[in-house]
């Protein structure tokens, strides 16, 4: 009973916060902090409950599926909710300096807080929903709040980026919706559990799953549908970018994983897993090469997201299809999930660092940041830590994730995947070495061109970067938690 209460609090609290920040915008920052704390506590409570008693399931309104909507939290959803709650909490604390308006209300000072909270509600809604149509509504909630966040600074480029983002996202939604409709026509249900029990590889199911995957891939910015991501993520204000780049694409990825590993593993044949893995590999190479040639820090970080999202799709050939029944499957799957989580922490840290650099140097032009580490050692350190996790160097979360995926790739004899993982790491070293070297080098001209930034403000990205590292050092707990509710019996991957 209390755990189903926690399950409802995790969505209800941010929605309540959303309403409060609209009518009481003077206290918005406080409301947002309290709300994300409640969410984090509820998520941790759920984690304890899930690891003690297994997955939590509740039927809303007392109506069981297929008539009603069911929510469920397993190890995977709990891990994603903890990381999202933590990121939103830290980003909210950071944003107090940017979006709090003493005196009269301002446009962005009003809009940021409700958008942030409804984004959190939508994410949590996606992580626990078992109903394909309910997921569609959650995705629309997520999309509209994310698109609105891109426009917060009001610049023409941002409006253009937001429009491009909205068009891609709407196309993704509508393809997904068509898939959900076909599933209902076939099964008379929208519930993952009910559908999963009666999968029969009919034409309706194959078309529906294909449409949903295409729609979700559009929303996850999988290569070659990545075009909207870099301008949108680099055009938003840094606290918004931090959430957009770390969390929003993970939501659609999360449902792709649910679809192919939980609901329809029978349909996940080799053509599909190879195609997804191939696109993921192309994303790694293309995103990394683009990141190398960018001249603005936020663009480097945004293209790095394109590349890092690519890794997530290599999970499909390593853990799905013919690999599903193999001993390395569990390791590859868990590695992919850990990568999604550690990337979320590292990427949000990087965007917050970039935000601080922009405030200090008034630009994110890489050359203009030369020697900024002298003024802001803490932030430069945080950026470097986050870079270590993205590169997959020990002892970070990124290391554990890539290690698991790499060992699975070797075990399966998938040399091409192993090559892509390693090549991606090397390329990441190239595109992250440059900003780090520029930050740490001596300033060109003496004197202080940089505005000093309060220490407290600089704590925020450091906390997130440390989180990414600790996900590696203390990886036993998350590893164990991720296995709970996993459909295929967990193998010891480590």
């Amino acid at each position: 009973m209390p755990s189903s209460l926690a399950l409802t609090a995790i969505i209800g609290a941010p929605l309540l916060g959303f309403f409060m920040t609209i009518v009481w915008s003077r206290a918005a920052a406080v409301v947002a902090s309290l709300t994300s704390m409640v969410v984090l506590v509820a998520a941790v409570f759920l984690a304890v409950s899930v690891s003690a008693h297994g997955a939590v399931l509740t039927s809303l309104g007392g109506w069981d599926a297929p008539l009603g909507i069911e929510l469920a939290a397993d190890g995977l959803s709990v891990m994603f909710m903890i990381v999202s709650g933590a990121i939103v909490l830290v980003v909210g604390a950071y944003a107090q300096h940017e979006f709090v308006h003493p005196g009269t209300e301002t446009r962005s000072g009003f809009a940021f807080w409700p958008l942030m909270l409804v984004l959190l509600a939508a994410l949590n809604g996606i992580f626990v929903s078992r109903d394909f149509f309910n997921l569609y509504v959650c995705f629309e909630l997520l999309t509209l709040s994310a698109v609105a966040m891109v426009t917060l600074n009001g610049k023409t480029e941002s409006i253009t980026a937001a429009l491009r983002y909205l068009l891609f996202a709407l196309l993704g939604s509508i393809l997904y919706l068509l898939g959900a409709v076909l599933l209902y026509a076939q099964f008379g249900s929208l519930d993952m559990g009910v559908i999963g029990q009666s999968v029969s590889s009919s034409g309706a199911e194959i078309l529906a799953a294909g449409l949903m995957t295409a729609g979700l891939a559009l929303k996850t910015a999988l290569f070659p549908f990545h075009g909207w991501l870099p301008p949108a993520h680099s055009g938003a204000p840094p606290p918004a970018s931090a959430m957009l780049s770390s969390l929003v694409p993970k939501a659609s990825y999360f449902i792709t994983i649910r679809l192919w590993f939980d609901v329809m593993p029978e349909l996940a044949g080799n053509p599909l897993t190879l195609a997804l893995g191939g696109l993921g590999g192309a994303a790694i190479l293309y995103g990394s090469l683009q990141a190398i040639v960018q001249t603005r820090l936020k663009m480097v970080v945004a293209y790095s997201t394109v590349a890092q999202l690519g890794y997530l799709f290599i999970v499909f050939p390593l853990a799905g299809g013919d690999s599903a029944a193999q001993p390395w499957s569990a390791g590859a799957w868990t590695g992919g999930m850990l990568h999604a989580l550690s990337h979320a922490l590292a990427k949000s840290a990087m965007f917050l660092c970039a935000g601080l650099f922009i405030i200090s140097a008034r630009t994110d032009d890489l050359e203009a940041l030369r020697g900024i580490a002298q003024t802001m050692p803490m932030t430069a350190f945080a950026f470097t830590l986050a870079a270590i996790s993205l590169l997959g160097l020990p002892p970070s979360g990124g290391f554990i994730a890539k290690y698991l995926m790499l060992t699975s790739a070797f075990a399966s004899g998938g040399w091409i995947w192993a090559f892509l993982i390693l090549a991606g790491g090397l390329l990441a070293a190239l595109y992250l070495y440059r900003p780090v070297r520029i930050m740490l080098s001596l300033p060109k001209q003496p004197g202080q061109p940089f505005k000093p930034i309060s220490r407290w403000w600089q704590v925020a990205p450091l906390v997130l970067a440390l989180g990414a590292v600790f996900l590696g050092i203390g990886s036993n707990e998350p590893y164990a938690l991720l296995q709970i509710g996993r459909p295929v019996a967990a193998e010891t991957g480590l």
Partner: protein
Amino acid sequence: MIDSLFDLVLCALIIFVAFAAVSGRDLFTAIVFFIVYGLMVAIAWLRLEAIDVALAEAAIGAGLTGVLLLGAYGRFKNIDAARMGSWVPLPVLIVIALAATGLSAAVGVVLIALDPNGLGLIPAVNANIAQSGVFNPVTAVLLNFRAYDTLLESIVLVVALVGVWTLADNSAWGQRVGKTQSVRANGVLQSFGRTLPPIGLMIGIYFVWAGSSQPGGAFQGGTILAAVGLLSAMAGLFPPPRVNDARLRLSVIAGPILFLAVAIAGTAWGGMFVLPADLAYGLILAIEIVLALSIAITLMLLVLGPPEMTETPQ
């Protein structure tokens, strides 16, 4: 025989009008055809015995969407003809046409292969409607069986409004929403705007109230109320509200917040969204009424757009 002939003719017309809306020569023609298209689709819904959907399609799909598109078209007057856009290059066009045809065909094949006796959730709805508190099965699904979806949907509207407002100029924040309207005193529009609201108000409230047992409900009724409000605002009967007006913001979220409160109160009766059978009718009616008002105001504000006025109108 005559019945299915009617269906065939209607469907042919719908496809023809949709084609005109998608490929109409100029933008204005396309929008007008889109509105006609929406009305014809509403007739199709009547043929499928989905009267609630027909109402929603006519009011929201054709009406409000059409108003939004026409409003935007009005803003395009200063744009160069050369920058109004055109078709994508021909090779791309061919690929798109092939892909779209392929998808249509695939969906068609899947439909033909479906079990022709598929009942969906009709038996489940019929078995449980007695406990839902209402007699209209669509309202039972919307406000009881799947109330969570409906709550989120009402919040999507509010998020869209926040997003629209975010597009204001920094300097316009705190101003009245929409563009300054100029209306001739005692002109035709103004007298129209005075005559219609009482009738519209009555119809809107009737839809909300009737929703528990007959077709209608908060969304259809709210849309009609929004139209009444828009017409009155256009006729200059009241000035558009200011974006930071506390009462306005409260009225926008009142419906969703009451909905959420009832959902949370359900935990006392056994879980979130649980409505005890004896209280369900009253609670659903209360949610519908307040939600309809909030939806009406939100829809009206969505059409009016972000604050743009530089001065308070006369």
